[in-house]
């Protein structure tokens, strides 16, 4: 048993790194042999140099910092709001079934609607600035988090509620001692999705119309056909997203240990 756990711990990262190595090798193969034009796919070396330049230049770091702050701002703005709204939704579903079902229906419709079509309206309202991105970016994740939080509250079964009531637990203590720990793994999972969706939202907003941020730089480079810089920007954003995702996934697994049945 110990052996197989150790093996899986060893093999999972090895496999992941192997996939990365294979992708880079194929990339190098296609570009070095001229199978793919450099106008479409730059050489690995050129991309690496461009990435190094972005990560060391003042302009590159400034724009990365702006995108990072926008992601952070959107995250801080949306997460507590989503948790509170998700909790209220679950309460509504339990107390007023029909009203809860109606709100769920509205949420499903909202999740299914492409939010990007509202970007022009948002620009008309707030203009082209940080707020346009900070407001737009969390919309997608916010809806997903509301649904995930509401689902998380169902992790606490009625019998556990009865037990807590029987041992004299008050409402606040119940929320803090029971609801929150029960929901935590689902919340972290939702947070992970939320961060990814926020990064996507910020990138989309920056690529669409913006005056700063890494997405703005990528868009500018693409208009002058600076392919190595475009790819370097993409690689940097993808790497940061993958690292954040991996860290949150690790946290999620750690918090979910008790969910795995013996």
């Amino acid at each position, binding site marked *: 048993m110990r052996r197989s756990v150790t093996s899986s711990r060893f093999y999972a990262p090895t496999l992941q790194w192997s996939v990365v190595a294979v992708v880079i090798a194929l990339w190098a193969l296609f570009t070095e042999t001229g199978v793919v034009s450099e106008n479409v796919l730059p050489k690995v070396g050129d991309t690496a140099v461009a990435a190094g330049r972005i990560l060391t230049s003042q302009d590159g770091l400034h724009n990365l910092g702006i995108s990072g702050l926008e992601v952070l701002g959107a995250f801080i703005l949306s997460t507590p709001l989503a948790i509170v709204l998700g909790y209220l939704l679950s309460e509504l579903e339990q107390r007023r079934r029909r009203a809860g079902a109606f709100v769920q229906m509205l949420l499903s419709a909202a999740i299914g609607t492409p939010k990007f079509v509202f970007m022009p309206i948002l620009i008309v309202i707030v203009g082209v600035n940080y707020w346009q991105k900070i407001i737009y970016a969390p919309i997608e994740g916010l809806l997903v988090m509301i649904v995930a939080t509401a689902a998380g509250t169902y992790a606490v079964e009625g019998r556990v509620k009865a037990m807590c009531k029987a*041992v004299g637990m008050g409402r606040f203590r119940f929320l803090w001692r029971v609801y929150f720990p029960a929901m935590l793994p689902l919340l972290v999972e939702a947070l992970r999705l939320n961060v990814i969706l926020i990064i996507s939202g910020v990138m989309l907003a920056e690529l669409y119309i913006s005056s700063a941020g890494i997405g703005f730089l990528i868009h500018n480079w693409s208009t002058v056909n600076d392919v190595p810089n475009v790819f370097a920007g993409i690689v940097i954003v993808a790497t940061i997203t993958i690292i954040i995702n991996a860290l949150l996934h690790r946290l999620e697994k750690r918090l979910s240990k*008790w969910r795995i049945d013996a």
Partner: protein
Amino acid sequence: MNSERSGQAAVGPARVAQGAQVSASATGPASDGSATTLGAQAPSNRKGEIELRDVSVWYRKSATSEMVHAVSDVNIRIQPGRFVSLVGPSGCGKTSLMMVLAGLVPLTSGSATIGGEPVTGPRPRSTGIVFQDPSLLPWRTALDNVALPLEVAKVNKKERTERARQVLDLVGLSRNWQSYPNELSGGMRQRVALARGLVTNPDVLLMDEPFAALDEQSRDEMGAELLRVWERLNTTVVFITHSLSEAIFLSDEVIALTGSAPGRAGDHIEIPFSRPRDLSLMARPDFAEIRGRLYAALRPAAQVPGGGAGADGARPS
């Protein structure tokens, strides 16, 4: 406690009192009109005394909002320190009565008292509860689960840890106090739930089919284990079960609930076997005889149209 129980427990025929009025009080009248002395050497205080008088419970089903008449005009009196089982078909209101005693479901009419005080809400310090499902918090260790009622009661950490470990030791889990629920077997989880119910040293322990989810062998073993624990405590136990054998083996008295939505208190049967008891008791002819009587007492309920599965097993939420 043991001498008290063995003193009242000469082996003999079960005494069956007919009628809806059920009394197990020390000097309360049986419905046959004779003054009875059940568990005559009861503790002088009334701490663990339970009395339900003319209790009726209606509740609204959460799924359909339909009103259900769970129990009607139930009168039960249980003296302190007794082990009393409630048996009856599904939907006869056993769980509703337990929820009333736990203060989790309000009475529609009548009165419920524990230790002479009306039950108006949960009484965590004096009433322990063990549900059919262990209802453990999976992110807490066995020790932390057991200590939960003490934590809620704001007992300091050192004391609650000490008391929780003592109770875990009592239920035979001294080695598993650091285990999480997913690392424990079904029987062990139920022991943790039992320990949680006992950690406040309650006057009354309410148990709602606590071993129903276990296989037969584990169930018998848990029953014997429960008796071993109970015989060391001065706790009144109200035990709900579908198993007549389990009820007879464990109890001083078995109360049959009949009917279905609403259920009513029917016969009560005094169990005459001495304590301590062991599982071989179940093979004795007099055990079978009592089982037969109990079965007969419940049979009319099974013949009620829709009885047994009545009220589709709905329970107050």
